[in-house]
């Protein structure tokens, strides 16, 4: 529609809307600036600020510690990749076990349920200690010395699988029973209807919550340092001891934040896109 077609009333409405929008933008900028200035002033006026500044934000230390922390991050990334893959596989298996209805398989279902309860409740740090010091303590023949990063990956997988299994289970249960009913009425077996009808729809639905757990895992890979793996956190710790300055922790922290931001944005984008589709009635 061209400008000239619009009625007086519509033009007046549009002018009003534009002025409203301008006003709220200006308000947002001013209030953000005001808030930042107040926060900054409060911080620099604390009695110990100058000491904190030199011991946490020292440029020279940052430059010198950078390579070792970055090196450690590479280990975190490798652990992240292996842990993510094994979590996805193991969690999906657990979720499927909890949805089993065949009475012969009841022990398996109960086992999966018990597993999920146990590892959702157990603090990750305790799982790390149990796996990290318990498995080597078994002195299994021919296994030799297992690298701490591998033990850490195992511990992370054990804990995260319990959470992710619940996400998958929720996804499976969110698919309306009529989809499975339709599949069964066409002659598909229970397994076929789960594999070909329920799971593909369930997995699509749980992508945003899965990404959320992935973000959590991204930073929890830093905990493998407690087992002695020289990752970004441990690397930073070594440099902290060396320079008697806490700046390397800030560097490691920034690395983890930078790692998380793309995933977080992608998750938001995916969730928004799905919400939009759902409002259009796309996902049944």
């Amino acid at each position, binding site marked *: 529609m061209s400008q000239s077609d619009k009625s007086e009333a519509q033009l007046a409405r549009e002018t009003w809307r534009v002025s409203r929008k301008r006003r709220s933008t200006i308000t947002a900028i001013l209030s953000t600036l005001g808030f930042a200035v107040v926060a900054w002033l409060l911080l620099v006026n604390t009695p110990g600020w100058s000491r904190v500044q030199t011991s946490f934000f020292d440029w020279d230390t940052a430059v010198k510690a950078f390579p070792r922390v970055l090196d450690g991050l590479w280990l975190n990334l490798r652990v992240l990749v292996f842990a993510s893959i094994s979590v996805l596989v193991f969690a999906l298996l657990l979720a499927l076990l909890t949805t089993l209805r065949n009475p012969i398989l009841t022990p398996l279902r109960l086992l999966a349920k018990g597993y999920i309860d146990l590892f959702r409740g157990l603090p990750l740090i305790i799982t790390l200690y149990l796996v990290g010091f318990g498995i080597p303590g078994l002195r299994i023949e021919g296994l030799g010395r297992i690298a701490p990063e591998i033990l850490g990956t195992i511990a992370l997988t054990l804990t995260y699988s319990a959470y992710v299994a619940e996400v998958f289970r929720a996804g499976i249960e969110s698919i309306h029973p*009529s*989809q499975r*009913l*339709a*599949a*069964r*009425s*066409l*002659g*598909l*077996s229970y397994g*076929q209807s789960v594999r*070909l*009808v329920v799971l*593909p*729809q369930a997995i*699509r639905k749980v992508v945003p919550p899965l990404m959320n757990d992935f973000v959590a895992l991204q930073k929890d890979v830093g905990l493998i340092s407690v087992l002695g793996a020289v990752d970004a956190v441990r690397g930073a710790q070594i440099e902290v001891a060396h320079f008697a300055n806490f700046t390397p922790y800030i560097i490691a922290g920034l690395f983890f934040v930078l790692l998380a931001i793309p995933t977080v944005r992608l998750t938001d984008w995916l969730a928004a896109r799905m919400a939009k589709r759902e409002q*259009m*009635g*796309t*996902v*049944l």
Partner: protein
Amino acid sequence: MTEIDWSKPRLLAKNIRKNFDDRQVLKGVDLEVYPGQIVALIGSSGSGKSTMLRCLNLVEELSDGQIWLDGDEISRPGINEDEVRANVGLVFQSYNLFAHLSILENVKLALKVVQKKSDREATEIALGWLDRIGLADKANQFPDKLSGGQQQRTAIVRAVALNPKLLLLDEVTSALDPELSGEVLELIRDLKNAGTTIVMATHELGFAREVADWVIFLDQGVIAEEGEAEEFFSRPKTARAKEFLARVI
């Protein structure tokens, strides 16, 4: 039009009972359907029509009674129920197309997975049916992009493509406006003319009167009256049926 073959029943159901916990939904229903026959199940909501159809497709477990398909008892213990279900098509009021598959893939799925047809053969059969309902050009669209009538016709074709011995239609037009129901009813007329044996639960009494050979009036889980369609609609015998028809028409 094909004739009904009266020599032996396609479907025979005796004393079908179904309880949900303490509630008796079906209290001993008998049914006989002959090849090429169209049977309409009518009755108010909650009379047991849908439950009856689900029992016949074995997606609902019987509480009592027996069912034979072409003389073979399909309610016997240990029967391969998946195989039976592919032979007894069931179409739902809410279409229930698979949301993650195109309509072509919807029709192909059971052809490939249940009937073990090759991808090429399944595609050929599915496209043939979609063409017949005028949706071949939309074959790669997802269900949510189609109108209710188009979705329901796809759902019917998805069942019919398996070449079932019996087709069960559960209120297939109840969620559609009159124009879209018209498209679906047209397809059912076509299927009748092709000799498909159908049992349909329906609220479309006018349509039931037109296409059905036999009408069964269910009331509170029992057959209150049954008869030839024309006879039933013009001269109902029981007070309950008279009351129902007076209320609905």
